[in-house]
Each structure stands twice: as C-alpha cells, then as structure tokens.
C-alpha cells in the first residue's frame, strides 16, 4: 500500500493496485462523521463502439445503454440493493456521465459492511428480460423529465452543436426509442467488457482506519473470479477541430429564452501533462472573463444580456474538451453576437502578473474549500487518476503555472470555427 502525505493541504492518501487489477484509493478522515464510498468504471455513454471481451469484432450498442445498465445493477434476483443499504443505514446512489458510471453510498455507521455491499452489488449482475422491460417505463419518465428542462436541453444542445461525430453528442440516457431495443444480453456484453476490475477504481473517504480497510477490500476481491482481461478496444470516429454547427435553435415552451455559447476545446487524447495544464488554464481564463469579477461579465450585465442564472463551465476528459457559457436571456440573438465579439477579442488580450496571481490564489482557495466535501475528494481523485494525474498535486501544479503559459494559451484559445451557439426559444 502506497502512502502519500500532502503536508500543505493536510491530506494523507493511501493507494494500491490489487492483484485483480482494481485500483483502490483510501482517504481516512477520523474527524468526520461521514464516509463516502465511490466505485467507478471507466465506461460512460460515449463508449458505444467496442470489441466485447473475448471477441474479435467491434459492435455498436444502443444509445443510453451505460445508463440503463447503471439502473439495472440495483436489482437482483431476490432483492433490491436500495434495501440492502437501507438496512445498513446508508444512502446509495449512482450516476452515468459521458465517460464514467459510478456507484456510491454515504453512511455514518457499518462502514466495512457498506463497502462490501457496494463492491458486491456492482460485481454481481443479475439481468432478466422481465426486469429489463420493467425499467423501460422508469427510464422513459426520466428522459421525459429532462425533455421539459430547458437547462438540460441547452447543455446537450450545445454539445451537439460542437461535436459532429464524437458519441458525446448522444444524450446520456439515450432516447425513448433507443432504450426500447435494449436486451438483457446487451447489458451482459457491456457489463463483462467494462466492469472488469482493471477498468475500475474504488475510492473511500471518511471515518475508517486505512490498513484495516485495505485488508478488508483485498479479502473481498480475493474471493471473486475474473477472466483475464486485455486492454479494452474502443473506437471513436475522427472528430474535426471545428464545430459541427455554427448555430442551433431549439423550440420549447419557455418563459425566458436561453442562449449558450460553446467553445470546442479538445478533440484528441492529451498527455497527462498537457491535460492538466489545459484543464487548469481553461478554468482560470474563463474565470478571468466570466466570473462576477470578470470584465466580460460586467459588459454583459451592463447591457442587460444576462440573468442571475448566468454560468460557465469547462471540461477536459478522455478525448474531448469544451467550455460552455450562457444562461437565461431576453435577447438570445444579441447575447450570441456580443459573446462571439467578446470571445474573438481575447486573441489580442493578455493578463498582467498581478491579475494572474489573484486568479491563481482564488483557484487555490476554492480548491481548499471544495476539499471540505468528501464527495468532491472522491470524485476528483478518480477523475484525475483515470486521466493519469494525481489530484492531490493540483495545488502545486496551480502554483507552478506561469504567466507566459496563460498568455500563450490565450493567444490561440479562440478561433471563430471553434464557437457554436445554442438558443432555446419559445417560438
């Protein structure tokens, strides 16, 4: 077991790769009441085309299958996993993203039993035709719920405006039609390919003793048999650097229109070093322009183009990256024009040493603040691990960023062909 002390941020992290290939991170915090366990597979809605384990030829599975599988792992032949956790006083949950499927619990007691329940239910699938059929009604209502949410439509609409071929343009839950075709055999195929321990990470944060917990997890894993796995072969279509559409308009019965501008940031897999630089610089630069301290934010506000739900976010993951900026606006056309004008002007802009220092300090403070959250710690530890980065070195990496790097990034950040606009309007 590897033990890492990060003195400045007062964190100690234990990790180990078990003989079956499972990566385990343990972050004990004896002062906390709560423990959070997160068991994640490096498999999400975008893993649509792949070679199933033990086979030679690639297949393409129905849209929304990773999410469907997430739902179905909670149901067993004789019982419901929610009840198992309920008996142990824990709250379980799960989520599916473009790149990951994650199962989790939070609890204040019975920590080992809860970790065991988490590992065992995810590693013991039971799918039947009847239970797969039953789930279609539930997921249909989940999709319909999102259909009525302008925020979600705006998000996925902007992603679809940016990416032409990449499967992140597929809605995570799929469509009402696509999920109808899913069978129990499809679920088993995806399960056996992507839920192999070599493709998974377990992270437990909270109130427990690290040595005992690691031994407990190892013993649990030794009891289980897994076939030998080779590297998973996934395939992704070529993705151009420029956006798929300049503009997209979605008509929905909204009271206030929405407009989001997307910046297509990354379309290929980056090295770990490039990944983290890009990740941090995107965040710092967006913050510089669009936070409440940002000069673009002030312009948009003064021109009455934004509302209180204006927001921005940025992501780099596996082989894609994007930034999204927008929100409700009464004038989506003028908002879009102004945003494009502002973004294009960044080519000639540069940050001062003083400003850059303020942005770095802010980022550091915010990182510390976020680290209060056990959920955040576990999710980020796994996210960065999968992308080859030690999350706990982030504060050092932030401090080492230089003004030149930021200004170099800024010079080439925006070109017109990387920008897309998505409007949600009533008519």
């Amino acid at each position, binding site marked *: 077991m590897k033990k890492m002390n990060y003195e*400045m941020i007062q964190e100690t992290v234990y990790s180990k790769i078990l003989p079956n290939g499972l990566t385990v991170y343990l972050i004990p915090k004896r002062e906390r009441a709560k423990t959070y366990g997160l068991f994640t597979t490096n498999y999400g809605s975008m893993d649509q085309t792949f070679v199933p384990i033990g086979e030679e030829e690639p297949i393409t599975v129905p849209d929304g299958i990773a999410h469907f599988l997430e739902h179905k792992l909670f149901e067993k032949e004789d019982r419901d996993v929610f009840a198992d956790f309920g008996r142990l006083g824990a709250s*379980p949950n799960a989520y599916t993203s473009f790149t990951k499927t994650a199962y989790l619990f939070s609890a204040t007691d019975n920590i080992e039993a809860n970790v065991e329940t988490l590992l065992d239910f995810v590693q013991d699938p039971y799918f039947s035709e009847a239970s797969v059929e039953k789930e*279609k009604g*539930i997921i249909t209502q989940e999709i319909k719920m999102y*259909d009525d949410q302008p925020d979600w439509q705006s998000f996925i609409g902007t992603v679809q405006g940016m990416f032409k071929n990449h499967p992140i343009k597929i809605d995570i839950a799929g469509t009402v039609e696509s999920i109808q075709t899913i069978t129990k055999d499809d679920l088993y195929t995806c399960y056996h390919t992507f839920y192999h321990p070599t493709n998974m990470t377990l992270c437990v944060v909270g109130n427990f003793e690290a040595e005992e917990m690691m031994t407990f997890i190892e013993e649990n894993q030794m009891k289980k048999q897994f076939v030998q796995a080779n590297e998973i072969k996934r395939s992704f279509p070529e993705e151009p650097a420029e956006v798929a559409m300049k503009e997209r308009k979605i008509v929905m019965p909204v009271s206030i229109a929405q407009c989001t501008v997307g910046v297509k940031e990354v379309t290929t897999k980056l090295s770990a070093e490039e990944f983290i630089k890009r990740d941090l610089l995107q965040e710092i630069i967006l913050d510089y322009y669009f936070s409440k301290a940002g000069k673009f934010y002030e312009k948009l*506000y003064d021109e009455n183009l934004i509302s*209180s739900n204006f927001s921005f976010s940025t992501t780099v993951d596996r082989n894609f990256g994007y930034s999204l900026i927008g929100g409700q606006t009464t004038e989506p056309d003028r908002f879009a024009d102004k945003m494009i004008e502002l973004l294009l002007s960044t080519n000639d802009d540069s940050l001062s040493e003083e400003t850059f220092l303020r942005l770095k300090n802010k980022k*550091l*403070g915010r990182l510390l603040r976020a680290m209060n959250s056990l959920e955040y710690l576990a999710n980020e530890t796994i996210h960065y691990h999968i992308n080859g980065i030690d999350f706990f070195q982030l504060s050092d990496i932030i401090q080492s960023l230089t003004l030149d790097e930021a200004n170099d990034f800024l010079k080439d950040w925006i070109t017109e062909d990387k920008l897309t606009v998505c409007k949600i309007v009533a008519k």
Partner: protein
Amino acid sequence: MDAINEKTIVTNGFRLHMIPTTKYKTIHFVVKFKALLNRETITTRALLPYVLRQGTENYPTERKLQIKLDELYGATLSIDAAKKGNHHIISFRLEVANDKLINETNNRSLIEEAINFLKEVIFAPKTVEQKSFDPQIVEREKKTLQHKIQAIADDKMAYANMRLISEMCAGELYEIPVYGYEKDLGNITATSAYEYYQNMLTEDDLDIYILGDFDQQLLQNTISATFQRDHQPTEHDVELTEGATIRKDVKEVIEKQPVQQAKLHLGYRTNTTFRDEDYAALQVFNGLYGSFPSSKLFINVREKNSLAYYAASRLESHKGLLIVFSGIASEDYEKAREIIELQMEAMKKGDFTEQELSETKGLIMSSLRETLDHPQGTIELLYQQVIANTKLTINEYFERINQVTKEDIIKIAEKIHEDTVYLLTAEEGQTDEENEL
C-alpha cells in the same frame, strides 16, 4: 458522539453563535435576518439580496466587490432569501480559507479581513446621498428578480410546488411566495428599498453563526468591536394562531401546459410542526412513507408499477405540511394518485414491520449525522431551533427519534389529512416531439 459545540452569546443586539471545529479547511460566517412573512414587504425583501450583491461604499461595483473576494483567496459571498414556516429569512454567507493552510508570507489575518468585509456588505451598501440605494442598480436588479420569477414556470417541479402551495394555503401567510410578486416590482424605488432595509437592519431578529477553526475569545472580541446595533432579540412566541384548516373534500386542481411529463403533487396537513414533541414521530413517518428509496412511495410508484422516475415526500416542518411529488405520464394520473393515496392508508393502518421502523430510524439518524458533517448543514440545523424557538440538543433529538414506536406513528398518521391534489398535465392532442428548426 456527534457533540456539536455551540456557544451562543446575546450581545450588541444580536445572538452570536460560535461553533468551533477543526473538520474543515475553511471558516464560515452566516448572518441571518428574520421577520414574519408580510404581503406588503415581501417583494422588497426578495429584491434586497440582489441589490446588496452589487456593491458597497468601498467596493462600489459588483466587479470590485468580487475582486476583493478573489483577493481573500477566493472567498465566497452569497446572499439568499428563504421561507421557513411563516418567516422570511435573508442570509449572508461568507466562506474564507483557513489561514493556516495557505502559504502566506505577510501576517494578514483572513478572519479579521473577512469580518470587516462582511460588515461592510451588510451595513455599508452603495448609496446615493446616504438615503437611497443607487437607482440604476435597483432598476437593473428589479429586472433580475422579474426574470427569476418568470423562470419558475420553466422549472416544472418548482412550478408545480409553488402552484400547490398557493392553492392549498390560499388565505394563509404561507401562501406568500419567497421571491415576491412581479406586479409589485413597479412600486419599488431605490429610496423605498433603502428605507425598508434600514428598518430591517434594526427590527429583524439577527443571528450570526461562525463555524470553523478559530480562537474563540479573539473572535468574540473582534465581532463585538465590529458588529453593533440597537435591538433586543424578541423572546416572545412568534407562532401565528392561524387555525388548522381541515378541508372536508380534497381540493383537486388540474392545469394544462405543453409538457412532456405530468407533475403530480399532493399536499397533506400534518398538524404537527418542528416545535411539537411528536415531530420526531412525524419524521419517522415520512421516512417510512416517502423520503427514502426504501420508502413506500418509491417502492410502489416506481419499482412495482414503473409509473415514475421519482416519487417522494418531504416535510415543510415549520408549517406542518407533507408534500408528495412525482413525475408521471399524463395518462397515468388516476392510477398514480390511487397508489400514492393507498400508501397513506397503509401507513394509517400501521402496515409496516418493526424491522422497517428500526431501519428507517437508522436512516434518519444517519442523514442527520451527515448534515452535521457539513458546515452549512450544521448551521441550518442549529438555526431550526431559533425559528421554532426550541432548545433541543442534537442528542436529545436523536433520543426522541430512537423512542418512536409503531403506535406513535399510527397516532401521527391519524393527524395527517389530505388537502389538495395538484396536477400539471399535457394539453390534449399534444405532439410528443419538440420541434427543431
């Protein structure tokens, strides 16, 4: 076990609550102003958080204010308004990193800077001639609030909840929406808002919470030297004597809109509030009925009948309401409603096992402990006591939960009456697909 060390001091016209803990990497300041809901002032109160966020005497624009926060190592400031029972509460929340974790070479004290900054935001907003807010800011923020009010219609779950409350509690104080009324915005001016704010600063109940790793005596001195106002906290009982209404027939409200998913919300009167001794039994009741994935609603509406993705219930603990909410297909209204009502009947009959009862208690206690493992959660939970004017320690409350029996739950169930059913459903002959241009 989960001892929360809260030290409360009544001083300088407010209550200071200090909660020392080394669990977190940040220090939290929460300042809460509380007044009874009032139809006349609600819109001004709803507007204030937006106006105050726009600038102070020394940081006269939102941008300058934010740059100051950034310089405090990305400190965060939020100002929000909430409704708890018949009260309206405006909270200022400031969070700063703990100095100890930051490699500072100069000897600045982030805590002291934070306290002074917070004082400025509250007591020295940007004014014109010291008797009015900046009219330009007020006009701009009236638009912000107007959009916020309008946008509720775009969040169907929130909209259905608002509509249910307004139908169910018509004529009661609680019907007043937390964000006020769009039609009242026209009457608000920079001067009227400022005048009201000055009243609020002196008349509202004021509680200041500070949570984190700090030197208590030093902090208490700094606060005493910084915050002062003329006010005596009222100890009188503020519960209003609005009689419990029992409707003879359940009120049914059906509204049609072009939606993909219908929202079915049911409102029950619990006739029990946070201050009552049997509130613990109500919380356990709600756990068995609808607040967990192991509850009757989730199991029967979702798992057994595949009617919904979510079906749950929650308590409006200071008002005495239990709200059921679910998203269903429009054509499943009768079926879903029947299943939800049947679960309530089952609860009244005591149709649950001792094991389910004890597991539910375990889940409630675990979720309380989790809330106490979160800085804002701890403060909000402690503040419940202020709102309800009770003085129950966390351990006493755990003990009450522990002692709830099956009989207690049946007794509490008998006090619960179905009041209003609200359905937001699709228009006739609506096409199923959104149009794309």
